[in-house]
């Protein structure tokens, strides 16, 4: 595996910031079919399969997100799913709408 040198106790290639999040950020280029492995805050390793290529530092869905529901990162809403997003899909401009409050 390309990322086996990373951590000596777990092999991870994505970062979960808050346990409430439904996306993680990959910390290296991920190709379609790759395993994406991240740790929860209590140290449990979770593996999902990438359904498409994900550029470094971009987001991948770790849960199925139905159209109109929130994308959650940092434990907060960062936007709304513009389409249904499956676990393992790239989450970015093409499938997220900004839900900025009209203040």
């Amino acid at each position: 595996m390309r990322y086996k040198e990373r951590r000596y106790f777990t092999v991870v290639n994505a970062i979960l910031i808050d346990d409430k999040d439904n996306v993680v950020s990959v910390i290296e280029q991920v190709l379609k079919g790759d395993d994406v492995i991240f740790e929860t805050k209590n140290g449990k390793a979770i593996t999902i399969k990438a359904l498409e290529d994900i550029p470094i530092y971009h987001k991948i869905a770790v849960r199925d997100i139905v159209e109109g529901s929130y994308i959650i990162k940092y434990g907060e809403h960062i936007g709304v799913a513009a389409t249904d997003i499956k676990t393992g899909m790239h989450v970015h401009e093409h499938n997220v709408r900004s839900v900025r409050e009209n203040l």
Partner: protein
Amino acid sequence: MNIMSEVLEKIYRGIIIMEMTFYGYKRPDGKVGVRNNVLILPASVCASDTTRIIASQVKGCVTFNNQNGCSQVPPDQEFTMDVMAGFAANPNIYGTVVVSLGCENCQMSLVVEAIKSRTNKPIETVIIQEEGGTLKAIEKGVRLAKNLTQEASMLKREEFPISELIVGTECGGSDPTSGLAANPLVGELSDRLVKLGATSILSETTEFIGAEHILAKRAKNKEISDRIYEIVHRYEKSIQMVGVDVRDGNPSPGNKAGGITTLEEKSLGCIHKGGHNTINAVYDYAKPVVEKGLVIMDTPGNDPSSVAGMVAGGAQIIVFTTGRGTPTGNPISPVIKITGNRMTYKNMEVNTDFDASPVIYGPEKISDLADKLLQMVIDTANGKLTKAEALGYIEIGIMRACNYV
């Protein structure tokens, strides 16, 4: 690790944390400094070269290039006055020699009055036009500065609780690692500082835009919540005066290429520096910070100007996150620089104090790194020079609302 030893470990850490202290300088106004310098304060751009020459002659002096102090509209003059008075009052300063030209808008009497409203520390004055030009002004300034630094050198550091510290947080030259590693790490540091009774300042109003409702939810009460909306809206309006919408083109194409999808996401990455605590107060630019815990100051995204505002507010130490790396420092308060980008740490190690990349790549956990960073803050408070201090970086900026008149 079994549960028992984990609990013991936490208690052990708790005890260590509760007893944390640093060695600082007690000031006559009751505050505690982590440096003990004499400030040669230029009241305007026309006095800045003179202060540079005076400060270069006398050991233990600091100064900076003040681009303002004259030809400014009243709100801009207030920013300048607050930065000058706040710098002089900052507990890292023993005393101040104010140098003015004589005819500038920031008149000597106004500057001295503004300083005296904040502190009772020693103040001396030199007015270039009254002294009769450069050489006489420099001679007087050097004599006064020499006396003050000799007095300052008699002071000894004493032990104080961490609760005496005000730490300003700042980010600049951000990249995707800022929101993933360095800012969350500084957030953990903020949480620790607040728990210890100290103050952490969250700054850069431009970077609250899109996340103001999230910050507002964390406000102590309705008044603070309203103030958060107020400073964000005021900031947007001030940019609109020149026909620009801050929200346009944000996140930038570079941000998007780096994986940032929405403005909320970008701003959330920035405000992570403040940690998770309740927001106890909102301060206007460069105003004295008096509340403990997590507070906000209304500052611009421009790094030296934002740092100057927090230092004028009383921050004795600045913690600065960067993605691309920067040499920046401050003449009054040490600036600790942190990057989550391991390439940047290697490339700019001479300018970067702390490598936060293990937050991303391991093996250390963010909580262990936050303990290490807290120790670095204490070491810095105890007198260890930051890289920016050792290399002599002293640039500052002062926030501005509009053009000179």
